[in-house]
């Protein structure tokens, strides 16, 4: 059983549409990170959220950490083909330095 569940697993939408992907758990995390991975490359850190209810924005991307620190969401406004990639969430538990990884959401933005 995946400790961090990401949904949807796959999403294909048209350029200009909005979308939200989710990262959910029954565990409380001390931090939650979002990474983007493009084909043939390693994941690249986009953002880290650490406070319950925290919202961070990165241009058209909005990241939110749930109040209870058990879930997070990534919202993309007016998606562009350059947003295409695999989006991974990962978190740290209070008791452990190791990153717990979600399986990822594969996002395709069609021109």
């Amino acid at each position, binding site marked *: 059983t*995946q400790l961090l569940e990401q949904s949807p697993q796959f999403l294909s939408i048209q350029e200009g549409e909005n979308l939200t992907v989710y990262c959910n758990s029954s565990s409380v995390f*001390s*931090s939650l*990170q979002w990474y983007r991975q493009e084909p*043939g*490359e*390693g*994941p*690249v*850190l986009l953002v*880290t959220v*650490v406070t319950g209810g925290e919202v961070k924005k990165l241009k058209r991307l909005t990241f939110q950490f749930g109040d209870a620190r058990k879930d997070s969401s990534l919202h993309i406004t007016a998606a562009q083909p350059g947003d295409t990639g695999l989006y*991974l969430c*990962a978190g*740290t538990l209070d008791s452990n*330095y*190791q*990153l717990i*990884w*979600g*399986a*990822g959401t594969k996002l395709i933005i069609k021109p």
Partner: protein
Amino acid sequence: DAGITQSPRYKITETGRQVTLMCHQTWSHSYMFWYRQDLGHGLRLIYYSAAADITDKGEVPDGYVVSRSKTENFPLTLESATRSQTSVYFCASSEWEEVSYNEQFFGPGTRLTVL
């Protein structure tokens, strides 16, 4: 250039052969990690190292060996490669700070095929 590099980028080998994947980072980060990425499994931690000469097992260590004689290098060895070890391997590093969330920086990956 500063960063984290992996070599080779692509490798084809045969069952039973020994293979070593190299990882080098220029940030002097304390922590280094090896992951494998397979469809349906996401990233799975193989081994990690907190400092030179300190290594520990991750989620899927069987069949792999690591060493870390220098802070900047963290090679991963498949002692006797098996087909199930066909995967994309990523090396990553992070720095431990007082308030650290283990934000990791990844190399470009090595795509390994075991025939």
